């Protein structure tokens, strides 16, 4: 056994299907970048200043890094997971405190290191480390997903980098961490707890589209419902609770408008009622020893502070130009031509592809009219030049690699490997969902790259590392050897 461990052969046990899918996706990405990012003013297809040549070099670097990962013993990932986590957090938080010379503000976010010609986005690496740390914690023998304290610790692991990335003002990258709910669900998280979390994540993405009043009402409904589900019925009690909130908010609003000349708005009276209701529910839970209510309440308070507070801060604290920048960063306003303009151009480009597409280097819409055509909107080029057939092939590749990762996870004996594989699948899925969603106009525009295809060294290397660690864990010849370490 010892001999085997120290002599890992490079491709022994490696999942060749995953590697093949990876290479195909990188190749597809390079082809698109070559077409979309081609700079007419630079002479020569193989000029080193062309985007696709740069991207090819990044892909080469990434592949070498991947090979290096395959050479490392899989135990190291388990051993150093927490160190990597702490290191990555410090690295990520560094951008906030660093002077602007090293960490410049780009598009309102302070999320990049700029060292000469190289730009690094530490959040990409924080994702890897978070996946590792989460896998390590949840694979612990004594870990029990149904225990509130254990659940809180996992939440801490996810929320810490989330908070740091939000502080960088890089909302898009931060929301990616919400995808870990996927993993938690696989590991047995109570399904009625999943729903509110997913809803909150969705609400956050769309929060700027709703008024605080609607948000609050939706939140109250969701949490009451899931609380009822978690307690296995108790419908009547929750119905009374809901009716109580609605009635008292209504009465409060009515009283204030009769006696105090409308001192309270509808939103304010509802919020007051809800706060009172939380206290009442808390007291009730203490007296009846119902812990599940606590969990729901805590989640509810968290999301209630988070969502409308984001809105409140947004409305009152920020300067108009900052607001505009954030809105345009979130895709609510896009200059120069109003809401959804980018998305509309992107849809025109994809739509013009038809069934068979226009052919390599023949696309004009994506090249001339789509902004960020070789980074976030790379999929437009695929759509325009390769048509429906081509996009379905690309979609299948992306879908296949995610399903493959899930399958790899399922065949592990070790929880650590399984959880990690699932985390990678979740991250990929989220990226693909949001990126393609915005490209075809199903989601607001967020600056999230398409794995392996979008132009950019940081994301290429980070995605490769994510994938290859999973492949390495899967290929480990001594499955189970480190479990008792």
């Amino acid at each position, binding site marked *: 056994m010892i001999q085997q461990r120290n002599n890992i052969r490079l491709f022994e046990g490696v999942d060749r299907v995953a590697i093949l899918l990876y290479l195909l996706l990188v190749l597809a990405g390079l082809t698109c970048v070559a077409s979309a990012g081609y700079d007419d003013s630079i002479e020569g297809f193989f000029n080193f200043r062309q985007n696709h040549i740069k991207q090819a070099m990044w892909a080469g670097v990434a592949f070498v890094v991947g090979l290096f990962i395959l050479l490392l013993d899989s135990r190291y990932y388990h051993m150093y997971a927490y160190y990597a986590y702490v290191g990555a957090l410090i690295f990520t938080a560094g951008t906030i405190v660093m002077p602007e010379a090293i960490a410049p503000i780009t598009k309102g976010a302070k999320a990049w290191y700029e060292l000469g010609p190289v730009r690094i986005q530490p959040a990409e690496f924080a994702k890897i480390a978070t996946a590792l740390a989460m896998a390590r914690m949840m694979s612990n023998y004594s870990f029990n997903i149904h225990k509130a304290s254990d659940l809180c610790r996992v939440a801490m692991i996810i929320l810490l980098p989330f908070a740091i990335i939000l502080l960088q003002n890089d909302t898009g990258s931060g929301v990616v961490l919400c995808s870990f709910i*996927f993993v938690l*669900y*696989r590991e*047995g998280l109570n399904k009625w707890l999943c729903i509110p979390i997913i809803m909150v994540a969705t609400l956050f993405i769309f929060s700027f589209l709703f008024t605080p009043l609607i948000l609050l009402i939706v939140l109250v409904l969701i949490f009451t419902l899931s609380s009822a589900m978690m307690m296995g019925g108790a419908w009547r009690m929750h119905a009374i609770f809901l009716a109580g909130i609605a009635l008292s908010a209504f009465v409060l609003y009515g009283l204030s408008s009769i006696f105090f000349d409308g001192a309270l708005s509808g939103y304010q009276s509802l919020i007051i009622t809800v706060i009172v209701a939380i206290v009442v529910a808390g007291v009730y839970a203490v007296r009846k020893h119902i812990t599940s209510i606590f969990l729901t309440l805590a989640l509810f308070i968290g999301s209630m502070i988070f969502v409308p507070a984001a809105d409140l801060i947004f409305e009152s604290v920020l300067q108009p*130009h900052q607001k505009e*920048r954030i809105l345009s960063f979130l895709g609510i306003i896009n*200059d*120069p*031509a*109003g*809401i*959804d*303009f980018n998305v*509309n151009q992107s*849809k*025109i*480009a*994809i*739509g*013009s*592809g*038809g*069934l068979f597409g226009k052919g390599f280097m023949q696309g*004009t*819409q994506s090249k*001339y*009219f789509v902004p960020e055509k070789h980074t976030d909107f790379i999929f437009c080029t695929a*759509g325009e030049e390769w*048509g*429906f057939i081509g*996009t*379905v092939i690309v*979609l299948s590749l*992306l*879908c296949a690699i*995610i*399903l493959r990762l*899930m399958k790899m996870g*399922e065949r592990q004996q070790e929880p650590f490997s399984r959880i990690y594989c699932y985390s990678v*699948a979740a991250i990929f*899925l989220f990226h*693909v*969902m949001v990126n*393609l*969603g915005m490209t*075809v*106009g*199903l989601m607001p525009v967020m600056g999230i790259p398409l794995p392996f295809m979008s132009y950019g060294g940081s994301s290429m290397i980070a995605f490769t590392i994510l994938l290859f660690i999973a492949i390495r864990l899967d290929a480990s010849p001594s499955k189970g050897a480190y479990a008792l370490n």
Partner: protein
Amino acid sequence: MANDDVYTRRMILRFIVLLIFGVIACRIGYIQLIDTRYKSMAAGNVLNYEVQYAPRGEVVDRRGEFLVQSMECYDLMVIYRDLPKEGFDTTRLCNILSLSKERLVRELRNARAYPRAPRLIIDYVAKEAKLRFEEHNFQGFYTVQRTARQYPRKIGGNLLGSLGEVSENDIKRGEGEYKKGDYIGKSGLERAYESYLRGDDGVKIMERDRHGAIKGSYMDGMYDTLPVPGLRITSTIDARLQAFAEELMEGKMGAVVAIEPSTGEILVMASSPTFDPDAMVGRQRGNNYMDMLYNPQTPMFNRAVQARYPPGSTFKLVQGLIGLQEGTLTPENAYPCNGGYHWGNVKMGCHAHASPLDLRNAVAQSCNAYFCYVFRNIIENRKFKDVKEGLDRWVEYVHSFGFGRKLGSDFLDEQEGYVPTSERYDRVYRGSWNGHTVLSLSIGQGELGCTPLQMANLAAIVANRGYYYIPHIVKAIEGQDSLDRRFYEKQYTMVDAKHFEPIVEGMWRGVNVPGAGTSSRAYLPGWDVCGKTGTAQNPIGRDHSTFLSFAPKDNPRIAISVYVEHGGFGATTALPIASLLEELYLTDTITRPELVQQVKNLPYALPSRYVRKNDSAKK
């Protein structure tokens, strides 16, 4: 966790993945195969973005009279690709737009490098020319409406400032607010209030067919945005007074600043020589700019906020106030003056007047010797360890009067002036200096440098008996209730209000008691004018003439500082200008037309360095 539960969860997750991909694939299929709208939009149809430039905000004076207006004008643009293949009538185009043929050919050659991109051929096309241009329908050319600045009164060149095209730096700093070809405030009020004045450009998206002709609005204007005009700004300036000040200062170098003491609003801010702000608009802008740049009298240098002048005798007010506050001087203190101040071989000359004088009369008579004693008593006070500490304390006081630092007005070009500190003297004299070395500070000479704005602010401080409001040039912004908070906060000096009485009394006597002072020509019957002359020596020519004044004595309405470089005695040049402006502001009339003539015809010779060698510009 039971095994079948795990199995269900795996299946659900797999189902979710497939569902997400399925939805996306359906959506793409719909866009690419079913909805033909996108295809027709892309198939040869190209969108054309017409920027709708927002009209820039206008500026009015405190009475609502226009200082800056916006005038319609047009940019002529070309898209090279769309030019007719068989050529077009260049002569007619040139005639309509009064454009030289060489220039047109040159611009078209430049445009060929980027055939898809709109390119500017000529700007500031008048409305009539644009209408004639449209009659002829030149393919490939189009006009874009812009607004140009127009100055009905042609006053306040440096005050209002000018616009220019954005630089690369502006674009980078603006983070997407500006694009190439936009205009931005380059100086003066235009620059300080850029964000309010500029408004937001709109865009009109037009759809074009495969031949390049405009087919109509894209998606019925769904993505069009309207331009939001810039906000109108009400300036604190009194246009009538400003014009009169510029008229009186014509041919002289210097600056006039007047402030309303009760609010800090700047009534007049004239820097002379000035320029016609209309010269900075239009096709001749470049030439006019270069001409002014090489003018030795530097008309674009805003003396009112940037010059560093020695304040001369007007600074004695500060000296006296500090002495009173420090307790080293009482109003009854009298010092002798026999033609000046003598100490060993140090001598500070003075003019002939009665002696000895008390503080009130010393202010009125502007006695040099008196304030030498005052200054020495301040900095050589025994409570200080040495004279350095005394001087540093004195500097603190002077700073509190707004000297040696920016006042924080809304005028971005404002400069600090200069107040020397003990460190500076330690450096220059290698540590060995005393009260006599720095004696010239006592009468506002030496290293002291003040901007006319700071001096006017001093007048406002004395008028208010000890505090000021930060001077500002904007009274109101359209749609906003208030200005920045700092303009509403009283800024106190380190001298208490009770000490101001003798100084004000001295300034009043200087004007209103015949023979008691230097400023009697500033007398306006019934208005209780208070004033202080100043005559500042300078190394390169005749003395600078300055006058500092406010009126009326109680509840003052105007505080003014006039500074005329090389104007001689304070009472000769600066005083009548200030007096006439006060009269116009307070009484709305000019009762002394002969004084106006006298000011305009004053013998005035500038040192040779300010005279243009080959005076070709004036031909």
